[in-house]
């Protein structure tokens, strides 16, 4: 892994052990956003992994149904298919 990946993963780990216990564990997804981030950064690199994680966090709000949303496999064209397994929330 590159130093950037280590840095990002370290930051997420730090969050999990310090901030997360204070603010509570409120994720609507499985795996949780922080676990998703750890995996995404490891598999897709710092840049793309960070991007995937940012999008995931933006989706993690009360207007999204949440649910099972794994990290997309690295071989795919990620930006195009990242959300394919998860249907977009109904918008009305």
């Amino acid at each position, binding site marked *: 892994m590159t130093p950037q990946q280590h840095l990002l993963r370290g930051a997420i780990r730090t969050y*999990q*052990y310090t*901030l*997360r*216990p*204070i*603010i*509570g*564990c*409120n*994720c*609507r*997804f*499985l795996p*949780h*956003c922080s676990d998703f981030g750890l995996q995404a950064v490891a598999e897709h690199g710092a840049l793309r992994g960070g991007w995937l994680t940012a999008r995931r*966090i*933006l*989706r*993690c*709000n*009360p*207007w*999204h*149904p*949440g*649910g*099972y949303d794994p990290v997309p496999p690295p071989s795919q064209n990620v930006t195009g298919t990242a959300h394919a397994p998860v249907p977009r*929330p*109904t*918008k*009305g």
Partner: protein
Amino acid sequence: MDQKRLLAAIALSVGILLLFDLWNRPAREAEQRRQAEISAQQAATAPAPGVPAPGVPAPGVPAPGVPVPAAPLATPGAPLATPGAAVAAAEAARAPETRLPIVNPRLQGSLSLRGARLDDLVLRGYRETVAPDSPLVRLLAPRSDANPYFAQWGWTAADGRTPVPGPETDWTAEGGTLSPTQPVTLRWDNGQGQEFRILLELDEDYMLTARQSVRNTAADAVQLLPWARVRRERTPQTAGFFILHEGFTGVLDGRLIEWKYSDAKTEAEKRRGPAMEQESTGGWIGFTDKYWLAALTPADQATQVRAAYRHSAEGGQDRWQLDLATPAAQSVAPGAEAGLATRLFAGAKEVHLLDSYESRLNIEGFDKAIDFGWFYWITKPFFYALDWLFGIFGNFGVAILIFTFALKLAFFPLANKAYISMARMKTLAPKMTEVRERYKDDPAKAQAEMMALYKAEKVNPASGCLPILLQIPIFFSLYKVLFVTIEMRHAPFFGWIQDLSAPDPTNLFNLFGILPYDPMQLSSFLHMPAWAIAMGITMFLQFKLNPTPPDPIQAKVFAWMPLIFTFMLASFPAGLVIYWTWNNLLSIAQQYWIMQMDKKRQASRPAAAPTPPKPLLAGKAEAKPAPKGRKG
């Protein structure tokens, strides 16, 4: 089993900390004694206040190429100091320095006419402690004091031959006391055709304007570099807390430049020169303490200036200086006059006052002297809101409580949204138990199935990461405002809290004052005030209501968090602990209230009806039962 081990580990850690503290004590006390001795010695030797501190040249080593003698005073003919012992001998014979009194509604002090040094200034509106008879806060102090801190105006002879006023120069003052209605001019003639003048003006608050000028009546042009400086000859006690900046600060060309004392020292040693030196159009530089500021800025913000932060070490003492000068020496032709006009702010960092100086005098970013931090655009409005509430209720503690309540109210729809779906989730209970039964041996699979179920039924008990993460900067900002603003200083609250910015004085370890001893004498860890305990209890209760992390180790950390925080916050300003306690209480109340509403809803409709509930109770909570109306 694991719990026991963890408990043992924590007990062991606390034990080690206590032991280390005890073991360190003799060294710490010895250090304190040494410091006291040094200051006593210096107090003894200091009465020769003008002895030019060795190795401290006048400030402003200007643009390369402009020759600036390190000792601008050793010019023959000038009635100035000669280096070495002769000074001390001459010193004894000299008349004592005369002082120019300074007074306005908020400041009092005096300026030493020997060296044009403002080294005596107290703030009339602020006292050292909450006791009504405690001494006024002293901002500037002379070299004979334990913490010398002064402002000074002068010139450097860039041509190397013009006699300039130095630290031993006795200026003459025209006019009695410097006050808002009475400006004072200091004069000194070097006897070779140059007359130096400093016109001092004081406003009603904390701003002093110094207009330095020199008139050349000699036959030749002279090269002079006017400067103003603020010097601090002892490192002040800092809070050392990472969310508060103390040290050098300033805004030059619109950019905030902050240097901690320790970093400035490292940088100055590395560069073998000033820690920071920069030219700027206008701007300001200063020494910031938590609540006080001494800063320099050009009187006309269109002036091009050269600003610097400096460090030097003398006799093991760190000395700090910031100075403002013209970018290059001024050439004063025969018959001409040249100069530099600067302002010195010396006083308390009151937000409204700094704002008004910023707009009246056009000083860019002057309010950044208060460390509002990265979230300036949140923290500053928060401060205004708190200050407004303070104006209404007359108590800063009450203002904190009401403002926190208002914030919680603003975030209520988010929290509520999550709990609304809980209602529908109850209808899923049978299906959920079914899932749990089916995957009894595979918890991960069970959780995944559960998530699928949530999605299929469009319910989810958690509010999501985004709203929670959005709240972090908000609450951090509030916390920061409470920490940095002077309005919380010496502000009382109910009961035993006399000062919201100081730690709660009560202590569990002497049973809140029943036992006649101070456990803090044994170790600074033995401090457990009442409000911190209240904070710990509310935090524990709130955690009970929060979902726990899925990871077992994290869950354990989670369980110990209230205890860790209770100890961590014990020595924090009482205002922050009260705020945190109140915030926890509000979170608990909010959760409880939503749950009660939910129960009522459950009771008022058939148990298994999957349709959204009809709004029986009025209120936002049920105004929008379907999530479709809003978009994220």
